[in-house]
């Protein structure tokens, strides 16, 4: 598809949504819902996408995409509301925003801080759209050349890198979580011989583990347990009057915006690494390159811009591997992948052939969602801040009910709930003891891909592993996997520590 026709689809999609009042209403409604989900501590962007997935499964795919992308964009931004006004980040993605946003609010500049986050988030999303449009077709084209071995190594790399980066403790825990996810994906009939693995005679298990209920369990149930168990009370929010868009400040910080957007897109494109890491890395880079690093932590505008541009740019970044290879770039993108499968869309290199124009359509929705987010943010912020005073004990049980009915509705199987609840409890304890959730989820999602591609590759090469060492992409992936593995080991860390001591 040439550039002209892509532009044509882009603008026709924009026009199509704008001219349908119901779709505009849905766009604004879901963006606002996303902002509320992001703002309320305990509710996350992933959970928002998960719960909405269950409500959209009866909708037309194009309409469902509007709703899902809108809630994703809104929720990633919404976390900054509570981060700035009550110093509790609504989502992990906005934790870095609290570092500068709350000190600004304490100075009586909450409105200015929120105006900055609103504009910076919208800009971050818009910049990432360019990368979505440019890179997805390129990567899709490249991945058309991939053979089974490349796909197997890619899945393996996704699990390993996500385990390495997202783990709050020793990296082995991250990898173990990833392999546990892989094991869960092995349950059920395999794709090549239809042999029932780990089913133990159960018909339900033979059908395999459904991804969406597992994701809802892994992301929803631990949140509910944690919030109810810890009895959190919402602190009093900072006074908020008028939200100022702060265009002049944005204009002065163009350098930071571009750099943060690049960081956000880059980190978003790495499988399983979410918006929170993007925000922290961007914040750290802004501080390290600043002429006045000592001012960071006192309410500096650059810091807010760096975090908010990066975490929203991460959305576009996460869409790149998702749409081009079927590998989610972040936890909400993993949920989005489940939603795409539910609507009969199979992301991957064939996407541009089976559904030409789909990527451009997503880009158009992202643009409209970021506009809706900006409008909602500027005009409805004081109302959303009022919602922060709702005690979590009132809404978390309702979220629990939504998780339950949502998981059940996908397939009308009560067995989905029998999977979801234990999965949620296991994830709660794993998280408590330093095991990260993203690699587990990536493992569940990529397990089938890793399994069938490994065996298919070996079948073609008649059991030889030689192609893994002769194909250039395989070699690069192998090198990265070995590098990630070696640098994660304790021996390497001890070696680094010894060298540092000597220096």
């Amino acid at each position, binding site marked *: 598809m040439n550039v002209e026709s892509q532009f044509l689809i882009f603008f026709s999609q924009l026009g199509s949504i704008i001219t349908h009042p119901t779709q505009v209403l849905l766009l604004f409604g879901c963006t606002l819902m996303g902002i509320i989900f992001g703002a309320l501590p305990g509710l996350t962007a992933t959970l928002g996408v998960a719960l909405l997935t269950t409500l959209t499964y009866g909708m037309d795919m194009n309409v469902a995409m509007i709703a899902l992308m809108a809630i994703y964009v809104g929720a990633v931004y919404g976390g900054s509301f509570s981060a700035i006004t009550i110093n509790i980040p609504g989502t992990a993605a906005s934790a870095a925003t609290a570092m500068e946003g709350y000190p600004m609010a304490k100075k009586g500049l909450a409105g200015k801080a929120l105006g900055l986050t609103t504009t910076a988030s919208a800009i971050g999303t818009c910049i990432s759209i360019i990368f979505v449009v440019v890179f997805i077709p390129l990567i899709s084209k490249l991945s058309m050349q991939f053979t089974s071995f490349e796909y197997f190594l890619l899945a393996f790399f996704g699990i390993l890198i996500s385990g390495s980066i997202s783990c709050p*403790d020793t990296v082995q825990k991250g990898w173990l979580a990833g392999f546990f996810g892989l094991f869960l994906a092995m349950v059920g009939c395999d794709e090549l011989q239809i042999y029932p*693995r780990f089913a133990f005679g159960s018909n339900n298990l033979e059908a395999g583990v459904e991804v969406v209920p597992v994701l809802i369990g892994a992301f929803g149930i631990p949140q509910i347990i944690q919030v109810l168990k810890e009895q959190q009370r919402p602190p009093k929010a900072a006074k908020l009057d008028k939200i100022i868009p702060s265009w002049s400040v944005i204009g002065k910080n163009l350098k930071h915006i571009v750099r943060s957007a690049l960081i956000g897109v880059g980190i978003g494109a790495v499988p399983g690494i979410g918006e929170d890491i993007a925000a922290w890395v961007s914040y750290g880079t802004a501080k390290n390159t600043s002429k006045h690093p000592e001012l960071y932590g006192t309410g500096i505008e650059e810091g807010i811009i760096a975090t908010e541009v990066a975490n929203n740019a991460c959305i576009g970044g996460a869409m790149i591997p998702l749409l081009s290879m079927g590998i989610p770039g972040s936890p909400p993108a993993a949920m989005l992948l489940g939603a795409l499968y539910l609507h009969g869309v199979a992301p991957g290199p064939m996407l541009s052939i089976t559904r030409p124009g789909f990527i451009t359509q997503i880009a158009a929705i992202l643009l409209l969602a970021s506009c809706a987010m900006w409008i909602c943010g500027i005009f409805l912020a004081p109302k959303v801040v009022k919602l922060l005073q709702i*005690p979590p004990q009132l809404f978390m049980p309702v979220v629990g009910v939504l998780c339950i009915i949502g998981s059940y509705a996908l397939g009308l199987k009560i067995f989905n709930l029998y999977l*979801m609840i234990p999965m949620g409890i296991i994830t709660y304890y794993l998280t408590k003891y330093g095991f990260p959730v993203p690699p587990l989820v990536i493992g569940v999602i990529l397990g089938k891909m890793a399994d069938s591609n490994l065996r298919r590759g070996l079948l073609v090469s008649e059991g030889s592993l030689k192609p893994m060492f002769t194909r250039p992409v395989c070699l690069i992936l192998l090198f990265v996997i070995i590098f990630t593995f070696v640098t994660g080991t304790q021996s390497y860390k001890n070696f680094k520590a010894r060298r540092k001591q000597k220096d």
Partner: protein
Amino acid sequence: MQQRLIQQHLVFKNSFLFFQPVALFSDGFIRIKFYMNENDKNKDMRGADIVIGILFMLLGVGILIVSFQMPLKASYGGVQGVWYVSPALLPIIIGATMILLSISILIYGIKQGGLDLLKASIAKRKKEAFFNDDTVRMLATLVPLIALVFINMPMIDFPISIAIYLMFTIGVFYSEKMEIIRKGLAVYSIMTALNLIIRVFALNKILDGMFIFTTDILALVELIYLIFFIRKLMFNVDGEKVEMKMRFKKSLRVSWITPLVITAIFRFGLRVPMPKEGFIMNFMYLIYYAIK
């Protein structure tokens, strides 16, 4: 006073693969909590690492045992197999890797003094009452959730089972009083045990055989009792009667309205048949068709 931990994050440090976790506390301060690289001394987790390491190792062994029972080279479905297309190939790799990784976590845990921490933790647990506040809170969160999914939803009318869950969870947690959580959990556990007996012995089929909605009516009685019980507990809190009255009213409102709204959206909007449709659902159908 020890500040409450709110967020724990990884901050980019010197190089790409080294991250320095920081923690955001309720006083608004960011403090470096522990290091995961060369200075990793996150000791409080090392005791648990030993237990989790052993559990994952057992899981890995289990995966290997089951995998080796799968066809490796033997013919399956009329096709002569070769090792590289065996369905056991990846599970064997997963099982073996899980064992190696859990051994690594186990060894690291032991080297970092995890055994002593584990012993200290067990000794501390022995001294504490089994039903301490932490355990009771955990049980009050999990018991209703498990009861809802495994016991109530398959045999009780959907809106009623949801209302029971919400009334208990919102009622006791919103009160923010440990005494109410304890007493409420005790009563809820008795109700759950009763429902479990009905479900295990399939008494609901006998009861519903006598009169179609008997199980639902029994559940409604349980719900009404729960409402009055929580009301009594909340209204008896000294010095906070007005506040508790307001909280009880809110809990009651949310736990009645939510099931009705959710059921209406999913059943009549999205056409999702509920796991069990009974007494209240029947009323909803009557209203729906009357309006239609």
